[in-house]
């Protein structure tokens, strides 16, 4: 009887944890959207192609966050743990691969920007923006890919 009671308590705890995680993810998505809306509303400069591409990337990031939020909600409904050793392993592997790829991406970004006539301050800003957005996207795509195909530790 006590074991059943403990098991039910454990399930209830997991549901609460998953719900909080889903709420956190939806809040992050809402915060990104609100900041982006504020930026578009307040900007004095007209939006150019670069701004539109940043908006598109941010919308993609919001899409990913909402997707992961719904997954956490799904887990909450089933009474499952939203974070476990497999999801942690995926996040670790995605972060490690992103770091490896980003080294080449930063170098490539610097190399490409040398062909354009931009002043050094704007160039530095551009490299940082491209690097940060690129790393975010690479991380999210690798995470999504690994959560679909799994991790073959024997091959990697």
């Amino acid at each position, binding site marked *: 009887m006590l074991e059943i009671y403990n098991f039910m308590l454990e399930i209830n705890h997991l549901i609460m944890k998953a719900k909080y995680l889903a709420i956190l993810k939806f809040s992050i998505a809402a915060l990104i959207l609100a900041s982006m809306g504020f930026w578009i509303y307040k900007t004095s400069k007209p939006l150019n192609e670069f701004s539109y591409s940043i908006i598109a990337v941010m919308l993609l990031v919001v899409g990913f966050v909402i997707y992961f939020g719904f997954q956490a909600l799904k887990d909450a409904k089933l009474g499952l743990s939203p974070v*476990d*050793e497999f999801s942690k392993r995926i996040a670790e592997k995605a972060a490690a691969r992103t770091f490896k790829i980003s080294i080449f991406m930063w170098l490539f970004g610097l190399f490409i920007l040398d062909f354009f006539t931009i002043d050094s301050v704007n160039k530095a800003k551009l490299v940082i923006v491209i690097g940060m957005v690129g790393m975010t996207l690479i991380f999210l795509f690798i995470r999504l890919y690994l959560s679909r195909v*799994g991790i073959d530790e*024997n091959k990697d």
Partner: protein
Amino acid sequence: MKTRIKELRARDNLTQVNLAQMVGVRRETIVFLEKGKYNPSLKLAYDISKIFNLKIEKVFIME
């Protein structure tokens, strides 16, 4: 590494969700364990083996 989780689940009439709840992981973890696409930690392997009342080496088979 191969596992007998699918076979043992069928033996004990357990769904992937049931097993995931019992060992405290996500359903996807059980899916990838069954497919051999993830090597579990020693603790998870032990917990799963305990559910089936078997030794670890009877559930997880090294090739």
